[in-house]
């Protein structure tokens, strides 16, 4: 997997090209939730993740996606908790 860090892909979240290194730390220092979706056809991303991260650091990758509305309601709740 030589040269992986230099590989770039179009990030569907941000709308521009980014290096693989960003994907590995997008989620507050941990891999982006979509890292497997975006790279699984390029190389053995799951092996890469297992070799480079602890299992608990990858748990969020396997949580199901939420509907946008669900996320928004959750974010409103979190914001209220932060500001009170």
């Amino acid at each position: 997997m030589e040269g992986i860090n230099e590989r770039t892909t179009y990030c569907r979240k941000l709308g521009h090209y980014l290096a693989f290194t960003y994907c590995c730390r997008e989620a507050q220092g941990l891999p982006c939730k979509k890292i497997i979706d975006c790279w699984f056809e390029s190389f053995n991303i799951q092996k890469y993740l297992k070799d480079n991260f602890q299992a608990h650091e990858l748990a969020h990758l396997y949580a199901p996606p939420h509907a946008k509305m669900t996320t928004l309601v959750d974010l409103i709740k979190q914001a209220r908790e932060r500001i009170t």
Partner: protein
Amino acid sequence: MPTKAFLTEDEMPRQWYNLAADLPSPMQPPLGPDGNPVSPDMLAPVFPMNLIEQEVSRERWIDIPEGILELLWRWRPSPLHRAYALEKALGTPARIYYKNESVSPPGSHKPNTAVAQAWYNKEFGIQNIVTETGAGQWGSALAFACSLLGLHCKVYMVRISFDQKPFRKIMMQTWGATCIASPSNQTHAGRDILAKEPDTPGSLGIAISEAVEEAVSDKSGKTRYALGSVLNHVMLHQTIIGLEAKKQLQKMGEKKVNVIIGCAGGGSNFAGLSFPFVNDKINGADIDIIPVEPFSCPTMTKGPFIYDHGDTAKMTPLLPMHSLGHDFIPPPIHAGGLRYHGMAPLVSQGIIEGLLTPRAIHQLECFAAAVQFARTEGIICAPETSHAIAAVIQEAKKAKEEGKEKVILFNMSGHGLMDMMGYESYFAGKLFDYELPEHEMGDALKAIENLPKPKIAKTGKW
């Protein structure tokens, strides 16, 4: 021979089309984190009630207020082009048309909803609108819209995009918006992240948290949040694209369209062009309607449809969505925030019903198509738009092989003049199509075979 069809302002559609009214299998209501349906009052801290009403509306046609029409007239109706030069280069009997949404001041389809959302916010008494952006397409569209209405706009732009895409940031500032790199020290959410990871490149999730927090924490009640994709009211506002296109095709003498194509990220530009034609298909028209996505991150085409739950206690059933396989069963984890959700539910339901036929295309083919389009039609398209053009070329070649005079319509959703890095990499030979060997792909998919499957609401007509 006419190369473009225009509409006058008077001929512009006076209503948006709401596909939610006509989907053969009704949409399930969105669920909150507690598993109960989201009620309008739960969204009131971030959206004005007039937009929330649109979000949940099942009315087929919704009037476009005169005040919004007057703002849209700055650049709408957008022209419908006949792509004669591309047709000639391909030697196809197909007649190719494209709706040119790159003519808006920010250069994309995004202002169609930005203007509408800003107007509804102002009607509701809101003075400040806050949002998040990545590369800046949405942020610049909202900045433009707010400038037309005298509203203050604040955009949290993901730090890595803020650094890599300076021109979009300057566009926002030119229209009077405040553009802040996220995470910032202006919110609790931003400060918490910076304390843990000072050199973080940021993420869309953090930027959304900051924007929502700013809306929620304004005690004056004069601040709301705006979103540029995925939600139903966003799809609704974009349908003006397809409704205009229908009238323009008639002006060009076309009685029938065979293929509708749009690129699909969050789904809004695709929905905008296609939904009025989906209505025709529901009512018996024979049309291929194709959302196109990158092969490198396929969410509509390769992902088996799995149903899952928001937490391990399985108390929070979620809407079924397309997802890719993973090689082990999810470990225990509770639902939290900061999750990106890819595709608009209305588009997803259209795929489930068989009304839409998604397609994924490799990036090299997309860039080759974009370059061919630029060298024939003259417009340098946005990277996302190149997916649609590549599918158009595939369909035009197919029409040639079949000897059929098909009518193909696609959405030229935006120009790429602010996004030339991809072209630079393409010309420098730095882009590659990667593909996992079939047996490894099979292993990954096999691992999820036994995961619970969703109960799919589908009529089976298409």
